[in-house]
């Protein structure tokens, strides 16, 4: 029995949340049960992914390949838990568990009605399953389907709050994301036309030989992929939908949207670009330079826009745009260090941004203040929440001992290794700007004269979730251990064994 479970663990990681998601509506009225189930699934998922990651690490980077339905590669669908898959599974599971815990405490204040909340959890689990699937699937069309599932659940999560602006943001997001999906599908189509394969490995092998015959078609495919995934991943300048959507969603939703969902699309794009197209071809098309250039612009513009926001969650949303720029920049460097940095930044930004959004959500639900300038005194009244916010800010800025530093350090190494000093300067400038938009929050919260309002800390579960995330930030910054190893190995996979 255990052997069977172990053998099918990769598929369980995807199926389990999806299955529970379908079951949930039946107990829609019993909120406690729903919450317990969700947390249980996430906890089990975390355990399972940790086990998988250990397995992958123990195998020295050899992937665990699962053939769905027993059909082997060129025809059937493959699930490959390699270094990358294990890494991102771990991130997804690691972030979504605290967020689920937080949601169980805080959602009642943000979403009205038990049924609505149950549906929220359905979408939440669907998103989790889709992200897990995206991280391990090795089939292009499967990627499309999972991306669609994730997109739809994201839109649902955005529209979870009753406010009309939520619906509007969700609609905008939906339209754009669907356009993006269409383009992804188009890209898959072009690749399929050229190579005749949907399995990434086979497609890559075919592409290596045929691309010279159809350079324009290949470029079309890449362009479609770039725009399609770019809009979903909020890559500058396709980030337009993000600030609205992420700031209007309930805070747990914002946390997973900013922390995880966006990263899922980036992982898919990475797979397409590095596993299918391959670094050599990227260089031929100058794609790496494009990524670095746009990444730098994203860092600067995103940060500057964040500086101008007074609404806390909007500020965080723009910050996400800038941080996504980091990841793309790291990708574009085309060396192992830069890639490691980008991957690690996916993890650390996932945790940090979730912590920030959750803390912001806690502040907003407890005080009703949405603007940075109104937060005076929050630090005194809600020490734990603001403490976590502070730690997360330090992490995002990239102070050593906190997780953000590690990613940036590797990206800096990468950019200097690539001889790109401008990129290094922009990485550092982004840090400084990041301090510029996050420290005012802390300053106002702690050091400005406080009004006499009687605010209180959020409930135990929210605090627990926040502290878990803060610990995660600290642990990742000091002993990133297996996660960094996985990122390093995944980066090596991307760039060396191709």
């Amino acid at each position, binding site marked *: 029995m255990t052997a069977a479970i172990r053998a099918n663990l990769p598929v369980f990681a995807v199926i389990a949340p999806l299955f529970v998601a379908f079951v949930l509506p039946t107990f829609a009225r019993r909120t406690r049960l729903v919450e317990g189930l969700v947390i249980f699934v996430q906890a089990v998922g975390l355990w399972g992914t940790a086990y998988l990651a250990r397995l992958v690490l123990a195998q020295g980077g050899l992937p665990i390949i699962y053939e769905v339905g027993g059909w082997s590669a060129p025809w059937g669908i493959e699930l490959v838990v390699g270094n990358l898959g294990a890494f991102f599974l771990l991130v997804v599971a690691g972030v979504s568990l605290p967020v689920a815990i937080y949601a169980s405490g805080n959602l009642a204040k943000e979403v009205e009605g038990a049924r609505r909340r149950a549906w929220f959890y359905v979408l939440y689990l669907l998103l989790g399953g889709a992200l897990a699937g995206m991280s391990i699937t090795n089939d292009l069309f499967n990627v499309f389907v999972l991306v669609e599932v994730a997109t739809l659940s994201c839109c649902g999560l955005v529209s979870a709050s009753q406010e009309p602006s939520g619906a509007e943001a969700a609609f905008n997001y939906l339209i754009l994301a669907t356009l993006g999906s269409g383009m992804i599908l188009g890209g898959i189509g072009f690749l399929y036309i050229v190579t005749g394969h949907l399995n990434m490995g086979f497609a890559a092998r075919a592409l290596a030989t045929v691309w010279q015959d159809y350079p324009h078609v290949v470029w079309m495919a890449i362009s479609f992929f770039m725009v399609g995934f770019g809009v979903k991943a909020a890559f500058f300048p396709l980030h337009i939908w993000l600030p609205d959507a992420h700031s209007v969603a309930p805070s747990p939703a914002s946390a997973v949207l900013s922390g995880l969902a966006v990263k899922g699309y980036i992982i898919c794009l990475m797979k397409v670009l590095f596993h299918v197209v391959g670094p050599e071809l990227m260089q031929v098309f100058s794609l790496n330079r494009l990524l670095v250039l746009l990444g730098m612009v994203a860092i600067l513009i995103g940060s500057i826009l964040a500086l101008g926001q007074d609404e806390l969650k909007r500020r965080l949303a723009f910050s996400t745009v800038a941080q996504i720029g980091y990841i793309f920049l790291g990708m574009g460097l085309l060396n192992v260090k830069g890639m490691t940095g980008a991957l690690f930044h996916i993890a650390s930004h996932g945790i940090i941004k979730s912590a920030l959004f959750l803390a912001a959500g806690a502040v907003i639900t407890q005080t009703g203040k949405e603007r940075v300038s109104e937060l005076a005194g929050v630090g005194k009244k809600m020490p734990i929440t603001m403490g976590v916010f502070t730690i997360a800010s330090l992490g995002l800025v990239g102070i050593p001992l906190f997780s953000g530093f590690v990613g940036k*350090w590797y990206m800096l190494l990468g950019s200097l290794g690539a001889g790109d000093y401008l990129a290094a300067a922009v990485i550092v400038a982004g840090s400084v700007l990041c301090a510029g938009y996050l420290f005012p929050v802390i300053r106002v919260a702690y050091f*400005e004269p406080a009004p006499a309002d009687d605010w209180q800390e959020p409930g135990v579960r929210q605090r627990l979730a926040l502290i878990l995330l803060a610990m995660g930030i600290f642990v990742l910054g000091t002993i990133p251990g297996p996660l960094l190893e996985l990122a390093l190995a995944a980066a090596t996979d991307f760039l060396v064994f191709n």
Partner: protein
Amino acid sequence: MTDIILALLSGLVGGIVIALLPQASNRLRNTLVLLFSVAGAVFSWRVAGTVFSGGTIRLSGEIAGLAWSLQPDPLGTVFGLIVATLWLFATVYSFGYMADEPRQRTYYAFLLIAFSVALGVAFSGSLLSLYLFYELLTFATYPLVIHERNDEAIRAGVKYIAYSLCGAGAILIAIVVTHGWAGSLDFAGGPLLARGGLRPGLGWLLGLYVAGFGVKAAIMPLHRWLPEAMIAPTPISALLHAVAVVYSGVYGILRVVYSVFGHELMAQMNFSRALPWVAGFTILAGVIIATQQDVLKRRLAYHTISQLSYILLGAFTLHPWGLAGAIFHMISYSTLKITLFFGAGIVAKQTTKIRVSDMGGVGWQLPWTMASFGVASLGMIGMLPLNTFWSKYYLMRGSVAGGKWPFALVLIISGFINALCFLPTVVAAFTGDRDQLSREKGGNVTLMVAPTVLLAGIAVLLGLWPGLVWPGVEAVVNSFFIR
């Protein structure tokens, strides 16, 4: 080994303890603060004892796969001792100064935390840990800078953070490059880049380092945050912006020059020839601007900018005597500058006068304070019974011996202008009618005056007997020039 951990922890733990005692009475809190400060100082002295008696203390590990280490060498130990000793004085002074101020809990908590962070800067044995503590120092001192919590303080705080972070960013890039070129960031094995010899881009790297650390060391034109930060309470201005924080920048540059590049490599680089001129310019420009300031603390701030470059000038001479002068100036300048700031603080607290032009007669009210202030002023000029004479002497000797004799002249001219800057202040304090002055009597005078006078006394003692600290200076110089 345990000493170093305890030295670092005593401040940190103390800060947390203070922060967790919101209801504590002033007396209890002060006792605790003193206890933790003394503990930190004692352990630092023990560390120093080990280092100077030839022992090695090393504590290393990995943060996120990057090797860090705490290994005080003579330079770091000297800096650590300056920090630890002067912190005690500032703490006692704070008891007097802060007696009737609000937000004492925050103040003392961060004072203690900043203490341990500053010790961390001093004791770090690799560029990475140096960078870590250097960054943390900014954040640990930020609440102290904006202690007043008014608009001006907040603006100053923003400026402080912004400048510091930009500097830290430059350092980060430089560290990454160094890591790439040298393969290690640990100071223990001699100058990091020396083995690689000259290579293109070395000048840029040095420039990055100097610009990065130069922000805190207030090299012109990166100095603008410093006068603004003078809005902080006086003990903080004295300790942080005349000594600890700005010294962390100076210390960083010393480290870069002697532990990252090494003086042999520096001597071969064209860029290093420009650096003394930057320092010389800052020396003169800083003190010239200082003469024009009417607000005493601002005057002291610009003067700090000038004096910090003395140390840098000594370092940039790349000569043993210059380095000796720099180290000696670190010691002697800190004692005197703290005295000056303490004096200014007592005057501000006791008579609410902050402008030099208003200070007529203050000297008769606060004779001990102004006497100490006067002694320290003479020291800043470089007169002999004070310890700064020796630092200045060795700086000049280093400049002359290092073939950079114009800088000896710069130092002398700066001495003239220092006289123009401070003597009127002291003399003005004693002019005017000594009877018709009101006095506010804020704070606890005894606790403020005692450390001030004591420090002035120490300065005189060191001036008469520089041999008291000379072994430390010698050890530093030997550690870099004799291998």
